[in-house]
């Protein structure tokens, strides 16, 4: 460990660690944990470690486990307790608090977390219900659509919303003033303004020249603005400057053009300033209206949030966002705080820069008396859209210091080599301002020659449009990476601390949004470089999901023409449009139309779809999809198309989604209806990533957090950020504001709204910069930054940095082909041909009761129901008969004389008559003379019997056994000894008894098997066994067989159903 790492890990009290990228914070955290175990004898159960993701928690636990095993081998108690230690995310911590203090937190005792996708729909419904119940007067000032949009935003951040809605309106005047001054300052500080001022001072035309007049107007307006006076008039004066005037003669040579150009730029700048209206912003009627709206909005908010909460309480669900809110509510109770103070002695919080204010608050309450270690990097705070607030890190750091704790900064990077790190430092120093942290490289030398950091953009050329330039960018990335791979560029290997040639898995392409990554993936694939796209985009928008969805839709409703034709055109059947054209006809719907044709291609689709329709009741949708694949070869098609891995993952992903929607019930109709809603409401169902392997990673910068690669490409740098104004903005300190359309059609924008919007924009700009910081610091050895335009977007944000370092922005040279999308390669064929096992391997049965043999002989299908499926059979009669048989045996075995005793063995809803019957039957054996000889010479009862025939073992229990004989009781309605011949043969065989009998208790009849009968049964047995083993279960329907069969109602081959 470096001295700083040590200072952090071994700090005596609380500590705040600013950990630059790659400075070994996870390592330090694990050491810190160990420090508590070793030096402070704290149990793992008393240390809370909070990580940003579940994956990080798993990794931390695994790291600590290894450390403890190595450094504290004698402390196995730590090792085992570690498994139960609270190491997890904020969510899991909040969840624990909620479940331990449900009453204080105001949650149901046994809440569950709402499923993400379906939950969204459910909540949307709840929201609509709540809006519909809102008292009507609240809509008098805020119409429905505005109310709905505003509340939706407020509800997304309930804590802040509640506080915001409590704010007064008295400070609005100040905010207007602030806005004016800021805007004016921004104008005066603008480089164009300053240049203009100088130029207009330098040149002057002769008096009387029209342009000179305009110059003077501009100068005096600028002067007035510099004093902050006559703002509107001055701005308008500049705005109305005319440029198509002036005579060259009245100006020194060239001056006229210079002045014109300058004035033009000034005018443009002012036009922009005027358009925002900020420099002259004042409270207006919009603000008066907002004052009137706010009480209604507040009331509506409380009503709606209460209503939704009540619905959630009834359904016993919480959303992920609710957890934190309720945990905080719980922690506001002193007994809850006390509870945790008793338990937790130390807190370790990672990625602290991405903490939001709710989390901060509950952490504050939780850590009152405990030691706190926070680790973070404010430069890497990139979760503003999840309400992360970078200033919280600073607040906590200050607090820790003011309470005698320490602040440590980890500056030494173990990731990036010195020359590259110097450049990264240099790029960010001028733009990050106070946040900047100079990192020092542990690794001095670069593994390969410079350049280590390149910025390349596609030059603007007429006739080449944006999509084409984007392809140029993609091709360029692919070519650059291919060169690196082909030339075996050396990279540093962290594991071995050696240099080695680069592999695809050492590379990542990062971009802010998901969309362009698909393009890079295609370009790389075309260049023969394997890619591993992390899941991105919406599963339901993939073709594979759509095909499967169309199929399910059709199966659920064969009248769904659109779905059917989609299926017919899809790889399930691949019909041509000509075939469709020819078939299109008069019938009410397409499925009917299909029936009219005998064309072989159509017949095939008809047969397959009919087969699927037949199964749609019996099989769940997931199985129907499998069956469709079996019948059509769908997955064989997608597995051989370009991007096969991605397609297969989407097919699988869709089946997984369907499985979740089945909820175990497996009902096609319900699944299709639920899917329909997901599709209609455009709910994003995340796709699962494709297996990584040795491939170039493609991911968004946000998902690259915490990861590193040798070579990182940060692409698509000129994409513009789309900032559509929102209906409402709010923050807990300043309040909430709306924007709406006035009666005359123009937008009404109160000052507070503008102010909050400005704040938001500013925060976004800063965050965009931090996102870039995260992206650039993922690289160990080399960085390639690319853009499809020469300027704009984030490229501008770093311009100061490039300039300071003198890094040139290189042009990407290209030919026309580079503007075209590449031809995607087919997936590679396997190089070996593995063995094939395509046939069934039999039933896998190895053990059966002896009675099974008889049943198989009677009807293999019935055997299948009974023994393979363990189907208990239908019809009360059958179940009762089985019970009576069972109880008769019990009575005989235990010599039970009375009903009450016997009743204790019976199902409690068995009728009394049945018990009586069983008892009577048992008594028959005692009374009937034909059975007397056996009563007297019994040597054993309930004798366990095992017999092996072929590959099967049969087990059974012979009722009574005597010297040389075996006897079985039957309570059957009919006397049919031949049905039981195998059973008796098996007993006789296993017990080596020459004689076998059945006592029919209902008929007072004794059947004795002849030796020939037994022998015949014995000879027949092996072939029955073979049938069972082979899985041959075809039915043998007959009136007699089916009449008593408990499966007759569900058997499709039964005698009745024929």
């Amino acid at each position, binding site marked *: 460990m470096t001295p700083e790492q040590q200072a952090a890990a071994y700090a005596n009290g609380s500590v705040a660690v600013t950990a630059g990228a790659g400075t070994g914070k996870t390592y330090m955290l694990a050491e810190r944990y160990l420090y508590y175990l070793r030096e402070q004898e704290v149990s793992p*159960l008393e240390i809370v470690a909070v990580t940003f993701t579940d994956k990080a928690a*798993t990794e931390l636990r*695994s790291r600590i486990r290894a450390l403890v095993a190595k450094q504290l081998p004698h402390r*196995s*108690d730590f090792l*085992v*307790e570690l*498994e*139960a230690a609270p190491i997890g995310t904020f969510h899991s911590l909040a969840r624990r608090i909620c479940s331990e203090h449900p009453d204080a937190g105001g949650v149901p005792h046994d809440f569950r977390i709402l499923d993400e996708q379906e939950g969204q729909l459910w909540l949307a419904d709840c929201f609509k219900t709540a809006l519909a119940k*809102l008292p009507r007067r609240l809509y008098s000032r805020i119409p429905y659509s505005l109310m709905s949009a505003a509340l939706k935003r407020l509800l997304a951040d309930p804590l802040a919303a509640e506080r915001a809605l409590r704010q007064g309106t008295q400070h609005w005047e100040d905010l207007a003033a602030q806005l004016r001054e800021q805007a004016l300052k921004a104008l005066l500080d603008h480089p164009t303004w300053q240049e203009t001022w100088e130029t207009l001072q330098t040149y002057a035309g002769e008096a009387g020249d029209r342009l000179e007049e305009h110059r003077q107007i501009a100068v005096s307006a600028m002067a007035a603005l510099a004093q902050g006076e006559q703002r509107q008039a001055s701005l308008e004066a500049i705005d109305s400057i005319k440029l198509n005037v002036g005579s060259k003669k009245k100006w020194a040579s060239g001056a006229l053009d210079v002045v014109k150009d300058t004035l033009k730029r000034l005018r443009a700048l002012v036009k922009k300033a005027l358009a925002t209206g900020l420099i002259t912003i004042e409270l207006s009627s919009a603000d008066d209206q907002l004052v009137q709206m706010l009480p209604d909005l507040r009331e509506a908010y409380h009503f709606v949030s209460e209503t939704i909460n009540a619905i959630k309480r009834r359904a016993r669900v919480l959303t992920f966002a609710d957890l934190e809110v309720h945990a905080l509510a719980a922690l506001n109770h002193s007994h809850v705080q006390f509870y945790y103070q008793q338990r937790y002695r130390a807190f370790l919080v990672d990625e602290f820069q991405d903490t939001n204010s709710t989390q901060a608050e509950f952490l504050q309450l939780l850590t009152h008396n405990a030691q706190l270690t926070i680790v973070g990097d404010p430069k890497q705070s990139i979760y503003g859209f999840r309400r992360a607030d970078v200033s919280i890190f600073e607040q906590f750091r200050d607090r820790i210091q003011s309470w005698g704790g320490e602040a440590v900064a980890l500056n030494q990077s173990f990731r990036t080599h010195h020359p590259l790190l110097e450049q990264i430092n240099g790029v960010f120093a001028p733009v990050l301002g106070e946040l900047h942290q100079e990192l020092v490289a542990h690794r001095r030398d670069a593994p390969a020659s410079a350049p280590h950091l390149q910025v390349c953009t596609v030059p603007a050329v007429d006739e080449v*449009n*944006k*999509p*084409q330039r984007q*392809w140029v960018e993609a091709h360029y990335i692919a070519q650059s990476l291919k060169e690196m791979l082909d030339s075996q560029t050396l990279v540093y290997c962290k594991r071995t601390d050696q240099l080695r040639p680069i592999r695809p898995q050492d590379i990542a392409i990062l971009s802010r949004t998901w969309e362009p990554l*698909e393009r890079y993936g295609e370009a790389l694939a075309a260049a023969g470089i394997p890619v591993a796209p992390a*899941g991105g985009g919406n599963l339901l928008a993939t073709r594979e999901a*759509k095909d499967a969805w169309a199929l399910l839709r059709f199966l659920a*409703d*064969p009248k769904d*023409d659109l779905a059917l034709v989609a299926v017919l055109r*899809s*790889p399930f059947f*691949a019909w041509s*449009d*000509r075939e469709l*054209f020819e078939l*299109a006809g008069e019938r009410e719907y397409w499925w009917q139309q299909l029936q009219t044709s005998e064309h072989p291609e159509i017949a095939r689709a008809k047969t397959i779809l009919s087969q699927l329709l037949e199964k749609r009741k019996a099989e769940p949708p997931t199985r129907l999809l*499998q069956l469709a694949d*079996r019948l*059509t*070869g769908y*997955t064989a098609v997608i597995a*051989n198309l370009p991007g096969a891995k991605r397609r297969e993952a989407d097919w699988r992903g869709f089946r997984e989604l369907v499985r979740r929607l089945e909820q*175990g019930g497996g*009902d096609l*109709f*319900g699944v299709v209806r639920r899917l329909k809603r997901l599709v209609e409401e455009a709910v994003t169902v995340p796709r*699962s*990533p494709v*297996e990584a*392997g040795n491939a170039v990673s493609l991911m968004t910068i946000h998902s690259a957090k915490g990861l590193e690669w040798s070579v990182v490409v940060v692409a698509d740098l000129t994409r*513009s950020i*789309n900032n559509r104004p929102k209906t409402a903005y709010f923050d807990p300190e300043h309040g909430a504001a709306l924007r709406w359309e006035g009666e005359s059609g123009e937008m009404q924008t109160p000052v507070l709204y503008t102010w909050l919007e400005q704040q938001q924009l500013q925060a976004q700009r800063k965050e965009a910069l931090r996102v870039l910081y995260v992206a650039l610091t993922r690289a160990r050895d080399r960085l390639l930054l690319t853009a499809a335009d020469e300027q704009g977007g984030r490229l501008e944000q770093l311009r100061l940095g490039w300039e300071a370092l003198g890094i040139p922005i290189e042009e990407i040279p290209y030919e026309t082909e580079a503007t075209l999308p590449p031809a995607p390669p087919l997936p590679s*064929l396997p190089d070996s041909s*593995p063995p094939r*096992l*395509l*046939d069934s*391997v039999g039933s896998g*049965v*190895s*053990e059966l009761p002896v009675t099974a043999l008889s049943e198989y002989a009677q009807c293999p299908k019935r055997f299948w*129901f009974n023994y393979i499926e*363990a189907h208990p059979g*239908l019809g009360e009669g059958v*179940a009762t008969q089985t019970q009576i048989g069972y109880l008769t045996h019990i009575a005989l075995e235990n010599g039970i004389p009375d009903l009450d005793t016997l009743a204790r063995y019976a*199902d409690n809803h068995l009728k009394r008559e049945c018990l009586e019957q069983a008892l009577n039957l048992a008594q028959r054996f005692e009374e009937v003379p034909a059975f007397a000889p056996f009563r007297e010479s019994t040597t054993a009862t309930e004798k366990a019997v*095992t017999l092996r025939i072929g590959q099967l073992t049969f087990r059974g229990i012979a009722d009574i056994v005597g010297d040389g004989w075996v006897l079985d009781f039957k309570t059957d309605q009919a006397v049919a000894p031949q049905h039981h011949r195998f059973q008796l043969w098996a007993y006789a065989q296993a017990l080596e008894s020459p004689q076998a009998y059945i006592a029919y208790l209902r008929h007072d009849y004794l059947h004795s098997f002849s030796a020939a009968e037994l022998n015949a049964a014995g000879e027949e047995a092996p072939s029955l066994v073979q049938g069972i083993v082979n899985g041959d279960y075809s039915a043998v329907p007959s009136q007699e067989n089916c009449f008593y069969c408990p499966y007759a109602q*569900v058997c499709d081959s039964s005698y009745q159903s024929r």
Partner: protein
Amino acid sequence: MKRIICLNSGSKQSLEKLTNRFRGKIITSKPQAARRLQVPHYDLESLARSLLFRDRLTVASPLIAYRTRRDAVREVIETSDIEGTARAQTPALQAIIRAGINPDILRETSSSHRVQQLASLVEVYQTLLRKNRRIDSAEIFWEATHLQPERQPILVYGYFQPRLDELAFLDAIAGEGSTFILSGGNTEIFTNNREALQWLQQQGWCISNGEEETPDSLGKQLQQCFLSEAAVPTGVNFHAYSHLEAEVRGVLAQVKALLSQGVAANNIVLVARDETLYGSTILDVAWEYELPVRALYDIPLQETRVGVWLRLLLETIQENFPFELTAELLAHPLAEQLPAQLWSEVRKRPPQGLQHWQELGIDFSTLNWGQQDYRAEWVQRLQEVLSDFQIRQNSGFWAREIVAFYKLQEALVTLSAPETERISLEAFAQDVLDTLALLSVPAQPGRGGVELHAPLSLLGTRYQYVFVLGSAEGILPAPIENDPVLDFQERKQLMRAGLPLESAAQTAQREAFSFYALLEVATTAVTFSYPQLLGKEELLPSPYLEQLGVKPCSPSSLPIASPEEARRVDLRQEHSASDAVLANAIHAWRVEQRRESSQEPDEYDGVVGLPIEPSSRVFSASQLTALGQCPFKWFAEGVLNLKELPEAESDLSPSLKGQLYHRTLELALANVKHAEDLRSLDTEQLPTAFAQAEQELACPTLPGWDVRRAEHLEVLSRNFAEEKFLPPGTEIVALETQFKAQWYGLRVRGRVDRIDQRSQQAPSSDGGVICNCTDSGLVLLDYKTSSTKPAGIKNEAAKANIDIQLPLYMEAVQTALYPDEPVTDAYYYSVTKHKKLAGAKRDKSALAAFAEQVKSSLQTGYYPVKPDVDQHVCRFCPFDLVCRQGPRLNKKYPSESTHESD
């Protein structure tokens, strides 16, 4: 004769000898363990139950236990959430009972409020149970021990890690000559057992070391590896797969290979710590492989068809038959009561409420439930519904469902008691739902095949081949759950005071021990595996495997185990042509590959090549626009006659809103000619018109419609105050006028929203000119409810911005309706933004060229999938499912590829 503890599990032979010699009851932990001894399975619990039974004590069923807990909570804890509390308290309550801790002692040990409360809860709960001579399932052994049963010789096998209560009972029942087979040792992992051993010795048991199973058996060697750093024996594999399904495929392919080599299914076992995580995937892949596999783990009734249907039923009744729920209830495979005809009807006009459904002829008479009734009556009603819908017969199609049905029937008996208790519908429904959560059935009942088990079920068994799936951190070992009522720290406190609860450490050790014991099971080979990705999460290998010293690798060539897999490999290779499915797949693949390529579209991509006579069709402006936007869109609609099935909307869709606004304006303006008429319009005119339009269009009743409707009215009425809506000097001459005409040789039809007569240049109030067209004449208006002008047909750059509707209307109206009046202008007017959006641009030659293009498309049957470059058209096009548009089009039409849409 002594009572003996035999300190190792013994070889097959020694066990056989032992069992053969043994005269007494043989007790086994699980059926699998019994199989090893070749004896019928009889476990300790059955023995204890039979003793209790003799003493007329019964073990409360899960349902009764739960209800009693609820009663106890009601008595002890002040809360409005009785059910939730009862459920949340259950684990802690059972932990106390299982540990045999007396509530009084618990109360004395800790002053914490939770503990005090728990103590009272336990006390009340047990007292309530005892009233009916019942006990909780967690106290079976303690109770049986208290009965001081007569001792008998028993042989106990498979209880390798006995709990305290098991030990106590074992000691109480085991007579002279008994043998208890246990494992032990000096390492950490045996801590729990060492304590057990000591205690048993104090009770007079003797230790015998028995006959050791050959120490070089695979299992023994592996156990050594786990405890110390021994070399890993051969026969041990650890495979990493990319995802869970790949893992299951890999494992089952190996299983299939073994079976086809003649290994019996019962010599192979699949092991998963979390069976539910793997169960369904295993069953699915096994289905594909035609491989017999058995998954016997329990799933709650609420996840069976019977359970799902019952929940639907109760929700439907409670929410008074809302459309979606009721439809799902009827369409469910257990009910099958939604015939296709009825379905297409109800989806157009969704019924809400019992009566509405009844009117459609659905017999819901058995579903008309009240709000309050006696328990027995509720159950009776439910039974009637079940028999009315023939749920028993329908469940019979699946073994699992009929088992679930029978379970439910048993539970209903319990639910109907006490008969005289009157409860609300809500309470009854809750009771049923609780029941569905408490009871369970096997995931896949039946017999035969390779079984899937959790490690614990395999204690004391032997299989030749063991496959352990999910050997990943976070799955194996299972994460240790904290109990919210009695957390690990609280337990620690109580333990320090001498109460025998289980600590976090013990739980972890128990888990480790069961893995250790699992290692012994394999006799020939054991294969561990794990998925590197689970959903989106990356997984690490299990720490246990690390401890074993085995590193993951990718499996070497696996057999192809199903025709589906074979086709994937064969599609592009030499193959036997016998597989008809493959032949079709190859065709489909060629088609799809071409669609994805840069090649020209062909007959699989809209190029039908068969003519349609243009004059045989009448086109609306929107159809022509469709043709000009994306020919396939027109083909799908106009030729294939495809459309979404008609269904009532669950929200006000843009199209319905459009219709509503149009019709309202038509009605409201019926008597309006000039701007002045607008000012003097009756205030009721618009609302009345709106109401009539709503009715005509059968608008669905949406939540909050009254306020939303008020807003729509407000938006509409603003038009009347807006001068641009009807400028002075303009007269409305016609509303919603239909026409039919010839247009460049095509037959067209249409409907004009409004036709105005502009008498002279119409000045606006601020003196500006509203219309840049100075001629007087007829002006056509098309109302829009959006704020932008509609997309047109594609221009040369493939952007959909050439409007043909307005010029077409102008020409058609001129020729067909007003040959004598000049039609001078036409424009789109936004009735929501109250402004003119765009006027007609007439480019005769372009229009003529387009008309020619339309004719040629039809004559040559050319309808490629070719939307505008920005794919704006696709956004609201219903045919995306059919046309297969997407990034593939970028390759077909590269110079027109799509723009970024950030």
